[in-house]
């Protein structure tokens, strides 16, 4: 229905709240027992994760199978199957949750639909084999609230992800959705809204950490007939997927926040600049915009207040530099995404030369909840200068890969060991890279530092958008630096010399070192050149691009020295510095390695120890992977 007044919004909400009641109630309790239709439960719901990670493991098919089975059993009217956004626990995906008893099933396959329906939904008995097993106790855990991964998390930006159906506006409205917009339009002046955002202490979640309210204030002050609100959804940090999950799991929060921003700065046009590589997020966002228009929450004369606002989608085309706001604006204008000098800031002259306010997805997702719960509530979370929570994409050599949200000030140790469940395969923690290609590595000695914007910068890294890649003893820090530089060189737009040529030289020097041709002089070059690039590059990408090199050089100087002085790579990653050999005592001469060697470098008679010809060996490691007797070693 069309929502024309605040009264209409209340009516829609009170109806929608009833539908969501079952989930709200079970969310606020911890369930010990399990329920089923035959054991007296009247209605049940099955939440299936529809995030990209779980979809890659055929979660859609799980949903379809469940629906088929429920229909066959004639109970489809009493059990709803709902596709939600990301639950965050990607390591154990696909995730399925049963309401009202909160049973949290992990690594579900389409074939499990039978057991879930027959045993659990009908019979009221949990399918034990699908429950999460706590690695510490060996006990299975049925309620996600008891899983360590969730215990220390606080979901603010992700409040609706994995809870509501992102393609249903009423479920969003039931969770106080659009009430921040209604309240702002009806009861607050634009200045009051901006003031509330300022007082909340919210800082931009895209990388730099600039205070959002102040940014809005600048755009408000600019005088112009047309202004633009832009949502930066060009999440380019490889290995980070916070923004994507928010758009997939709670797209209406972005729509609402953009409208609030439009009202505050005096704009009636919103643009979402989103990566074309995110088809699901694009689909969900389009659906949300369409529904908001249909309900009258976007368009002309919203809630009869005379305020009009609408949103258009613009596609990115795969350029990391377009995360920088001036580059993003040029890209939206159909040009090459090259950054320009600031000032003028976009708040004065942005898209088509008009005042433009650019905010990141996660920043916007915080806006509605700040306005409904108040700046004081928000600023009570976090540290002195970094308020609220932060979403991180935790990945790499960690047990619990996934999307997490923690209050600012949580330590890396809590994130990696409590939430992340420690390092994979019992290996030793070596470093964690935050801030992607613009950030740096943090090491063992930084584990107890509270994570916030300023602490990370002080340690030579940065918050960035929230990618957090954990590395263990098998990762070579020189190679990691080279990996990031390789990325920056490829993504550099080429406009300014320090970034275009300087980074290329940095990469060449790193290649020289990993190829075993480096000298100690090269380490000095890396350091001086890196600092020059930081000081002289035009935009944020260039200025931060040497960070991975400088921080690894700083924290892992020994490892660099080993590469250039002893020609050794302790992590055994740099091929040029490795030699593969067969231990004659363990080799039984099965010939399997020789058969699989792509370079024909292994010779030997059957049942006699084989040898590797070092001149032919291409160091692919295939022999080692294939050998069943652990006879092949590398040094």
């Amino acid at each position: 229905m069309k929502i024309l007044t605040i009264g209409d919004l209340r009516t829609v909400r009170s109806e929608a709240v009833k539908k969501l009641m079952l989930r709200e109630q079970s969310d606020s309790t911890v369930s010990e027992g399990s329920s089923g239709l035959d054991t007296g439960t009247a209605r049940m719901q099955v939440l299936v994760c529809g995030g990209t990670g779980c979809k890659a493991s055929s979660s859609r098919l799980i949903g379809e199978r469940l629906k088929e089975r429920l229909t066959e059993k004639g109970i489809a009217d009493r059990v709803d199957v709902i596709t939600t956004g990301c639950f965050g626990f990607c390591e154990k995906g696909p995730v399925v949750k049963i309401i009202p008893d909160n049973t949290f099933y992990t690594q579900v396959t389409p074939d499990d639909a039978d057991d879930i329906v027959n045993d659990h939904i009908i019979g009221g008995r949990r399918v034990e084999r699908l429950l999460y097993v706590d690695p510490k106790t060996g006990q299975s855990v049925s309620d996600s609230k008891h899983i360590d991964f969730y215990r220390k998390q606080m979901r603010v930006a992700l409040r609706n992800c994995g809870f509501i159906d992102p393609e249903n506006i009423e479920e969003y409205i039931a969770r106080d959705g659009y009430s921040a917009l209604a309240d702002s339009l009806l009861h607050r002046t634009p200045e009051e809204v901006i003031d509330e955002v300022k007082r909340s202490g919210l800082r931009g979640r895209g990388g730099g950490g600039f205070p959002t309210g102040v940014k809005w204030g600048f755009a408000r002050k600019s005088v112009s007939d047309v202004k633009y609100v832009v949502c930066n959804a060009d999440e380019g940090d490889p290995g980070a997927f916070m923004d994507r999950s928010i758009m997939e799991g709670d797209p209406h929060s972005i729509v609402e926040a953009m409208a609030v921003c439009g009202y505050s700065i005096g704009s009636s046009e919103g643009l979402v600049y989103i990566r074309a590589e995110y088809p699901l997020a694009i689909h969900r966002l389009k659906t949300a915009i369409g529904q908001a228009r249909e309900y009258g929450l976007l368009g002309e004369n919203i809630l009869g207040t005379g305020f009009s606002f609408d949103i258009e989608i613009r596609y990115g085309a795969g350029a990391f530099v377009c995360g920088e706001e001036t580059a993003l604006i040029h890209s939206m204008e159909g040009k090459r995404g090259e950054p320009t000098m600031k000032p003028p800031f976009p708040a004065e002259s942005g898209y088509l030369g008009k005042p433009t306010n650019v905010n990141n997805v996660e920043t916007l997702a915080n806006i509605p909840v700040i306005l409904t719960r108040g700046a004081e509530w928000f600023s009570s979370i976090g540290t002195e200068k970094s308020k609220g929570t932060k979403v991180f994409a935790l990945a790499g050599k960690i047990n619990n890969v996934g999307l997490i949200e923690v209050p600012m000030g949580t330590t890396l140790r809590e994130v990696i060991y409590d939430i992340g469940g420690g390092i994979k395969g019992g290996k030793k923690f070596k470093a964690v890279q935050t801030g992607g290609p613009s950030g740096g590595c943090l090491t063992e000695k930084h584990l107890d530092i509270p994570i916030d914007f300023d602490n990370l910068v002080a340690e030579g890294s940065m918050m960035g958008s929230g990618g957090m890649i954990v590395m263990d003893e098998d990762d070579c820090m020189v190679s990691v630096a080279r990996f990031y530089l390789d990325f920056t060189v490829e993504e550099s737009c080429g406009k300014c010399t320090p970034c275009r040529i300087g980074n290329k030289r940095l990469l060449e020097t790193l290649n020289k070192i990993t190829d075993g041709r480096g000298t100690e002089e090269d380490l000095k070059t890396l350091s001086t050149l890196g600092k020059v690039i930081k000081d002289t590059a035009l935009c944020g990408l260039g200025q931060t691009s040497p960070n991975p090199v400088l921080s690894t050089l700083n924290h892992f100087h020994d490892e660099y020295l080993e590469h250039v002085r002893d020609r050794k790579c302790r992590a055994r990653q740099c091929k040029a510095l490795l030699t593969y050999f067969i231990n004659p005592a363990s080799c039984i001469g099965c010939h399997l390695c020789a058969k699989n060697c792509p370079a024909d470098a292994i010779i030997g008679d059957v049942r006699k120890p084989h040898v590797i010809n070092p001149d032919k060996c291409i160091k692919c490691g295939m022999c080692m992977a294939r050998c069943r007797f652990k006879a092949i070693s590398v040094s």
Partner: protein
Amino acid sequence: MKLPCDVAGKVDAICDAHGNNPGELINILHEAQHLMGYLPEEMQKLIAGKLNIPVSKVYGVVTFYAFFTMTAKGKYPISVCMGTACYVRGGEKLLDEFKRVLGIDVGETTPDGRFSLDCLRCVGACGLAPVVMIGDKVYGRLQPVDVRRILEDLDA
């Protein structure tokens, strides 16, 4: 190479639908790339003419963005994820193995047109790292030893 007639007509229509507005160039290129899977020179010339801008400008945009390509993709387009999470879990070794088995480099297509090889930055399935996308299907937790089997399965 000349564009097939129907493709040329569709490119025309796409440009018209966007009001032949140079500001819409990126959106136009997205739709145009859909037609043949890539953006051949002739198509770029046609678009430049419609929007009344130099071809160099269109070419500049096409080559700037990683999403746009000027080479035809294979029947099975293979994209190896080179996001950091996949990299630390062995993405590079996987890529090397694809290169070796297919005998092509990144950005190339096999002479028989069956396979093309590319890198991409993060599919967002980091829990399944390292990940390879072939067409729309995501293959997770792969090892170099799995490569040959996957290619054979596709070809079967």
